């Protein structure tokens, strides 16, 4: 589904990604772990198409198509979703209005008509129940005054509504308490299927107890230095990132 080959990316002439290789197939859950500054967020931004970063080498293939030149909204239309680490506020635009616009823009890009209001309302009801979101919440301005947990839950709510093929969750667990974590992870798990894939980016092993990965990759200094199964996450938790640093240095 997603194939990344020798990806190099920089910002303001500083190289952050130094040759990333990744192969993600439908139905899989991949975890990307790494210390601060390793390039985790850069990777997710570059895949999403943020032109703040410059891709200097390599390519990204999504569903068999090279998406390197595509604008972020076009990548989204093809089924790419990024749950942001720091979701931004948009005052005056309600959650409902925002989601409605997002869904319809994607439908229009595919030549479809807008989703009829009844269908939309039904979907909103279903998905908000799934994420235990109070419906009153939906008429609030997007992310305005939301707590960290509410913001992350709102991200997954959007994911539930947009039904992407590939979802990248950028540090979705940061700032969440145990209950919020349970709800968010529960939502992600319910959305998982053999037709879509999830990439979980995180520091900590904790989230991976709930969203169990098929593959774990360790990102260090802009490169994936080690890959393994879910046990790798546990080993990392036990031994810390220094262990990997030493292993790789050898």
């Amino acid at each position, binding site marked *: 589904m997603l194939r990344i080959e020798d990806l190099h990316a920089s910002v303001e002439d500083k190289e952050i990604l130094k040759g990333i290789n990744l192969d993600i197939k439908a139905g899989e859950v991949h975890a990307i772990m790494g210390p601060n500054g390793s390039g985790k967020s850069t990777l997710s931004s570059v895949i999403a198409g943020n032109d703040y970063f410059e891709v200097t080498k390599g390519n990204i293939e999504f569903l068999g198509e090279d998406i390197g030149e595509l604008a972020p*909204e076009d990548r989204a239309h093809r089924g790419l979703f990024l749950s942001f680490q720091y979701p*931004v506020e*948009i005052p*005056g*635009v*309600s959650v409902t209005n*925002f989601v409605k*616009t*997002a869904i319809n*823009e994607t439908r229009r890009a595919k030549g479809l008509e807008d989703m009829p209001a009844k269908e939309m309302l039904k979907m909103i009801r279903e998905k908000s129940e799934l994420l235990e979101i109070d419906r009153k919440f939906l008429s609030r301005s997007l992310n305005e005054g939301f707590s960290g947990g509410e913001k992350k839950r709102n991200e997954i709510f959007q994911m539930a509504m947009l039904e992407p093929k590939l979802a990248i969750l950028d540090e979705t667990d940061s700032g969440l308490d145990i209950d919020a974590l349970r709800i968010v992870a529960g939502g992600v798990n319910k959305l998982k299927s053999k037709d879509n894939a999830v990439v979980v980016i995180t520091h900590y092993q904790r989230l991976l107890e709930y969203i169990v990965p098929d593959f774990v990759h360790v990102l260090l200094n802009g490169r994936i230095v080690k890959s393994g199964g879910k046990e790798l996450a546990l080993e990392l938790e036990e031994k810390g990132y220094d262990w990997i640093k030493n292993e790789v240095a050898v």
Partner: protein
Amino acid sequence: MFLRNNFKSKMAYTEEELKKELETKEYEYGFYTDIESDTLPIGLNEDIVRAISKKKNEPQWMTDWRLEAFSYWKQMEEPEWANVTYQKPDFQAISYYSAPVSAPKYDSLDEVDPELLDTFKRLGISMDEQKKLAGVAVDVVMDSVSVATSFKKTLGEKGIIFCSISEAIQKHPELVKKYLGTVVPQKDNFYAALNSAVFSDGSFCYIPKGVRCPMELSTYFRINQAGTGQFERTLVIADESSYVSYLEGCTAPTRDENQLHAAVVELIALDDAEIKYSTVQNWFPGNKEGKGGVFNFVTKRGLCEKRAKISWTQVETGSAVTWKYPSCILKGDHSVGEFYSIAVTNNFQQADTGTKMIHLGKNTRSTIISKGISAGRSQNSYRGLVQVHGRAENARNFSQCDSLLMGNACGAHTFPYIETKNKTAQIEHEATTSKIGEDQIFYCNQRGIDTEKAIALIVNGFSKEVLNKLPMEFAVEAQKLLEISLEGSVG
């Protein structure tokens, strides 16, 4: 520059084509009608004032009123306190009167100069459409003279007078004499004095006691000839217990030299009456380098008698420099004043706008909701005054002033003034400032919403409160205008 030929070939212009054109980034109304104009020589002196009055066959009392205003103007100084910088207009270098030659009124549109009719069509005022569907009566002012008035008969049956002010001076002098200058006196300020001396036309409206005007009244203005100022004068009188909703929409063609627009609007709401006055202003804002554009220096004021209500709803997207404060004098007890405004500035535009709510009577209430959107290198200032006089018991005011900045080179400023001389007054003021950043745009992009749509979404959310106050037919037009004026503002 549009040539006569080019123009004639567009005779079969349809609404669809107009809609499509609106979607392009050009200033849609950048054209001018090549009609012979009857223009006075440039300069301003007593003779010119007399000449204007004579051209309109005005009675002596009107000529005298103008001359009085002119003598005040000569002694006044141009104000400099607004937070705007511009090249001062040279008052002797513009012509104060310009009328298309085929000036006399017609009974049916068939008699109107076809070129003029085509101009209206391009402005999006399809007279037939409006007559059949919206039921909006239209009084169009083309370069200082009202050209067409429709629906006069229907309104006439209710006793409603809706005509040009020139006509009102002839046919209803007692009403004009009684109310003209009572809300904005000749001496009020520099531009009001100028307007009082040289106003060439405008709208006059009178709603009789107890009558609810059944349709939105609308007026479109255009500045056509280069170097002419536009000085229209509007007077709206709502007699006791009456109601009227009035919409003013303005456009102007592309010009390199700045054009002056110094209008005066006076509203009088007698006991228990209500006037809703909405403006969607789209004067030429100057090009991307800040050259050209209209100077919009307007004095708008309403007077409320007992239990009367005046609401100003203003959407401003044009003009190179805007200086206006639609205000309410809450003279009568239990009177209400409202001001809802969206002011957009882009590229090099400058705006110093706001309102004044003067609480004189007892138990008066005022509401101010002002939204400023700045983009490009523009400067957008809100200046508001809430004044509660000594005998104004139990005055209430709520003000909310929000600014939205797009990009890093623009500015938003707020100058709220509160003056109260009565201890029972309750005054609330809230203000917010926010910025549309690239991360907000990217967030929308990542959800499948392209940048243009994202900006529209955000600006709309920001402006919703005010757009909801516009008469429905024009809210959509205003929304579209907001989108067009902000295109390309987030790089």
